[in-house]
C-alpha cells in the first residue's frame, strides 16, 4: 500500500549548474517517504490569479540520498522550466508531490546485466539508477554489471560529466555526440543506431534489464532496435518525455 499522494511544499536547499542549459535543484521535502531509482515527482506552480501549471520531473538522486534532486533542462519557450532553472533560489518553496511511478524503476535487487540508454536529459532517471548502484556493496555491483549509452547533442550538453567520468571505473560509460564534437573527441559521433547498440549493449542472450529514456522519437527508435536485436519487449522499459517546458 502507498499513502495518498498529497502536495507538499518543499524547500530548495541548493542549486547546481550542470550545463549552460541544465540546473539541479536540491529539495528538502517534508515527510518524504523515500523513492526508488527511476521515479518522478509532479511540480505545481500557482500564479497569483490561480492559474496552475503542472509538470513531471524525474528524480536524479539516489534513493539513499535523503534529499530529492531534480535536474531541469531549460526550454526557452517553456512556461515552467525557465522559472525552475533561472528564478528559484535556495530558501524558496516549491510544491511537489511524489514519488510517482513503479514501472520505470530499477534496484540492485534485480540481478543481471543492466543497459541504460539515455537521450538528452533522459539521463536524469538513469543517473538515479547509477547513483543507487554506486552505493551498493561489492557483491550487488558484481551481480549488476552496467553499461550506459548516453546520446547528447554537443559536449556542452552532457550532464553529470565529472560523475560519469568517475563512474567509468565501475561501469562502462559510452557517449555519443550527435551535432558537434570537440576536435579530440574519440567517442561516437552519430545518432544511436543498431550497430552502436550491438557494439555497446549486452547480447540479448544475457537477458539484460534495459532502460531507455529520452524524447519520444529517440526512445521509440532505440526500443524498436533493441527488440530487433532479440531483447524481449518486457525487458526493455521505456520512459518518453516531451518538451513540456
Amino acid at each position, binding site marked *: *500500500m*502507498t*499513502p*495518498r*499522494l498529497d502536495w507538499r511544499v518543499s524547500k530548495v536547499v541548493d542549486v547546481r549548474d550542470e550545463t549552460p542549459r541544465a540546473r539541479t535543484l536540491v529539495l528538502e521535502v517534508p515527510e518524504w517517504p523515500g523513492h526508488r531509482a527511476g521515479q*518522478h515527482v*509532479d511540480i505545481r506552480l500557482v500564479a497569483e490569479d490561480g492559474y496552475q*501549471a*503542472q509538470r*513531471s520531473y524525474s528524480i536524479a538522486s539516489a534513493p539513499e540520498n535523503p534529499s530529492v534532486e531534480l535536474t531541469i533542462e531549460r526550454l526557452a519557450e517553456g512556461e515552467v522550466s525557465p522559472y525552475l532553472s533561472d528564478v528559484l533560489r535556495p530558501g524558496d518553496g516549491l510544491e511537489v*508531490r*511524489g514519488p*510517482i*511511478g*513503479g*514501472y*520505470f524503476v530499477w534496484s540492485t535487487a534485480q540481478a543481471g546485466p543492466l543497459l541504460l540508454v539515455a537521450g538528452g536529459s533522459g539521463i536524469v532517471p538513469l543517473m538515479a539508477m547509477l547513483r543507487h548502484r554506486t552505493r551498493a556493496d561489492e557483491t550487488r555491483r558484481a551481480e549488476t554489471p552496467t553499461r550506459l549509452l548516453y546520446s547528447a547533442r554537443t559536449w556542452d550538453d552532457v550532464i553529470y560529466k565529472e560523475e560519469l567520468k568517475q563512474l567509468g571505473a565501475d561501469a562502462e560509460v559510452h557517449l555519443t555526440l550527435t551535432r558537434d564534437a570537440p576536435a579530440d573527441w574519440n567517442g561516437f559521433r552519430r545518432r544511436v543506431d543498431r550497430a552502436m547498440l550491438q557494439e555497446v549493449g549486452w547480447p540479448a542472450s544475457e537477458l539484460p534489464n534495459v532502460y531507455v529514456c529520452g524524447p*519520444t522519437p529517440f526512445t521509440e527508435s532505440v526500443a524498436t532496435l533493441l527488440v530487433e536485436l532479440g531483447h524481449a519487449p518486457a525487458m526493455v*522499459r*521505456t*520512459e*518518453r*518525455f*516531451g*518538451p*513540456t517546458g
Partner: protein
Amino acid sequence: MRLDGNAAGGMLRDLFTLDATTADATCAGCGGVRPIGALPAYASDMGIILRCPSCDVAILRVARTPGRLRVDFSGVSFLTIPE
C-alpha cells in the same frame, strides 16, 4: 504531445491508492495485455489519453476540469494492480 503511461502516474494516483503504472491493463478492443506505464499516451494540460499500441483503442482517458476529475475506463476490460 505523445508520451507514455508513466506520465499518467500522478493523475492515476488521484484515483487509486496503489501505483497504477505497474498495473496490467487488458485492452477492451483487442484483448492485448500491457502495463499502463508502457502504453503510448497523448497528454495535454487538461489530461491524458492512453492508447492500445496494437489496435489504437483509447484504453483510458483522464481529464481534469475545474473541481472534477473525469475518467473514461471503457477501453479497459480488466486491470490487475500489484499490491
